[in-house]
C-alpha cells in the first residue's frame, strides 16, 4: 500500500483541462517533489489531493482511504501547509495552534503541551503570546507549518514552503522537514526552488501543462539527462570562428561557453584525446577540461523547456 496513490487523475474547468490523467504514487516515508512552472496544474492537483477541489475523473487514495467516500478519514491523517499563511491574525501563536488542534478533536489540555513543543522547535516560543499579525513573514510561515503538524499527520502536503521568506527561516524549515521525514512523516512538496527539491526530495515528478512528463529519483532523472554528455574546455586564448573545429568533429555539437571556453555536447561518450590533439595542432593550450554533470535544474529545463530562473521570476510576479 502507498501513502498516496493517484491514477488517471483529471480536472477540467469547462473546456480547459488543467490536469490531464496523471498517475503517480508516494511511498510511505518518502519526500516526493512536485515541480512545474506556473499554470502547470500543481495547485489544482494538490487541491484535489487534500479535498479542496473535486476531480473530474480518476482515483485518489490517501493512506489507504479512497476519495471521495473516505475523504474525511483521509483528512485526519494529512497536514496541509498552503502557499500563503492563512492563520488567524487576531489570535496569538499559541491560540492558533490549539485552535487548529481542536479542529481535529484534540482538547486543549492535550494540545497545549504539543503546541508549546512545536513553538520551541520552530524558535517561536518567545512570541507565543503575540498576535499572528505581528509576526514576520518567516515566523508566519513557520507557525503555519507548526499548525499543519499539531495533530501529528502521517502525510504532510507543503505548497511552496520557503517561498518569499528570509534565508535563515528557509534553512530552518528545510532542516525541520528533513527531521520530520527521518521521524517517519511522508512529505509531498511543491517548490519553485530546484535546489530545494534536489536537497530534500527522494523522488520528483515534473508536471507541465497538466501532464506529468517525468517521474523518478533525483539520480534516475540525472541519468536520463546524462544520455547526452557535455565537456567544457578552457583555453589560453580567446576563441575565433568555431566552424573549423565543428568540421573536424561533426558528431558533436560545439558552442562557446565563454570568451575562452567552449562546450562540447554529444549523445555518445566524448573522448577527450582527439580534442586535446586538435587544440595542440591549432596552437591552443588547454587550461582545463571538465566533464559537466547535469544539475536537477538542467533536467528541469530539459524536460519542461522552461528556464528555472524564469520560473522563479514568474512566481515572484504571481505573488506580487
Amino acid at each position, binding site marked *: 500500500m502507498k501513502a498516496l496513490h493517484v491514477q488517471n487523475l483529471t480536472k477540467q474547468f469547462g473546456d480547459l483541462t488543467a490536469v490531464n490523467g496523471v498517475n503517480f504514487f508516494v511511498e510511505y516515508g518518502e519526500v516526493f517533489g512536485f515541480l512545474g512552472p506556473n499554470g502547470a496544474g500543481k495547485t489544482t492537483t494538490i487541491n484535489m489531493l*487534500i479535498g479542496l477541489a473535486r476531480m473530474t475523473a480518476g482515483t485518489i487514495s490517501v493512506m489507504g482511504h479512497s476519495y471521495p467516500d473516505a475523504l474525511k478519514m483521509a*483528512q*485526519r491523517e494529512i497536514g496541509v501547509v*498552503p502557499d500563503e499563511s*492563512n*492563520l*488567524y491574525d487576531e489570535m496569538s501563536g499559541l491560540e492558533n495552534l490549539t485552535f487548529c488542534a481542536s*479542529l*481535529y*478533536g484534540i482538547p486543549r489540555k492535550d494540545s497545549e503541551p504539543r503546541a508549546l513543543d512545536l513553538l520551541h522547535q520552530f524558535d517561536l516560543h518567545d512570541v507565543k503570546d503575540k498576535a499572528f499579525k505581528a509576526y514576520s513573514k518567516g515566523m508566519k510561515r513557520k507557525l503555519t507549518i507548526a499548525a499543519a503538524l499539531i495533530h501529528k499527520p502521517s502525510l504532510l502536503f507543503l505548497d511552496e514552503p520557503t517561498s518569499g521568506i528570509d534565508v535563515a527561516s528557509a534553512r530552518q524549515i528545510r532542516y525541520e522537514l528533513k527531521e520530520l521525514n527521518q521521524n517517519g512523516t511522508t512529505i509531498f512538496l511543491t517548490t519553485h526552488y530546484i535546489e530545494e527539491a534536489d536537497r530534500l526530495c527522494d523522488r520528483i515528478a515534473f508536471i507541465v501543462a497538466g501532464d506529468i512528463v517525468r517521474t523518478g529519483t533525483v539520480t534516475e532523472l540525472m541519468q536520463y539527462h546524462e544520455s547526452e554528455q557535455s565537456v567544457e574546455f578552457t583555453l589560453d586564448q580567446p576563441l575565433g570562428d568555431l566552424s573549423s573545429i565543428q568540421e573536424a568533429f561533426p558528431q558533436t555539437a560545439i558552442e562557446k561557453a565563454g570568451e575562452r571556453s567552449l562546450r562540447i555536447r554529444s549523445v555518445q561518450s566524448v573522448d577527450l584525446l582527439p580534442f586535446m590533439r586538435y587544440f595542440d595542432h591549432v596552437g591552443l593550450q588547454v587550461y582545463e577540461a571538465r566533464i559537466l554533470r547535469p544539475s536537477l535544474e538542467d533536467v528541469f529545463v530539459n524536460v519542461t523547456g522552461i528556464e528555472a530562473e524564469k520560473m522563479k521570476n514568474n512566481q515572484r510576479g504571481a505573488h506580487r
Partner: protein
Amino acid sequence: MNAWIAFLSILKKDMQNYYLKPPNISWGILFPIAWTLMFFLRSEAAITIRDLLPGVISLSILFGTTSMLAVTITFEKKSRAFERLLLAPISLNLLMLAKTSGAILFGIGGAAVPTILAAFLTDLSGVAWGSVLIGVVLIALTSTFLGLFIAVSVKEVFEAQTFSNFFRFPMVFLCGLFIPLTHLPLFLRPVSYLLPLTYGNDLLSSAITGAHLLPNTLNLGMLLLFSLGLFFMSTRNIRRKWIL
C-alpha cells in the same frame, strides 16, 4: 474524533474574534434603540411601545445576524482562513452550523436589548414569553441562514453587505413590522408571504400583543422550512462554488 470539540472551538473563536468586539456590541445595542426611538417619535397615531416591540426585535435580529455573516464567512473565505476549516475532518453541515451558531446567539442577544428597554418603559404583563423565545430563536435561525446564503453567494465583504440590503430593506416594509400587511397594496402582499420575517414577526406579535394574521403553527412551520431551505441551499453552494 469528538467533532463537538471542533464545533465549540469554532464557535468560541468566532465569538472572541468577531462578535464580542466593541463595535459589534455597540451596534447590537445602539441599532435597536435607534429603531425604537425612530418609530416611536415619528408615529402620530396612538402607537405604543408594545405595538412596536415585535417589529424592533425582528429588525434587530435581522440586521445583526446578516451583517455578521458577511464578516465571519466572506472575510475568512477571502483571507483563505476558511480553507483551514474545510480541511478539518468534520462534516460540512457541522462546520457551517458552528460558523452560524455565533450569529444566532448574537441575534438572540440583540433581541434582548429592545425587550429589556421596553420592560423599563412599558407594562409587559401578559406577554407569552415562551412564545417570544421560540419566535426570537426561529427569526435568528432564518436570518442567520439568509445571511449565510448571501455570504456564500458573493466574493467580497462589500458585495455581501450590498446584497444583504437587497433583502433587508424590502423586509422592513413588506413583513408587517411597522406597516400591517393588510395596509399594503394587494399586488405586494404575495411578496410579503415569500419573506421569512413575515412569519417571524407575526409569531412575535401574537406572543406580545395577541394580534396576528396567521395561525402560529403555520408561522412555526414556515420559519422551520425557510431555515432548512436556506441552510441546505448554502451548503450546496459551498460544495458547488468553493470546493471546485
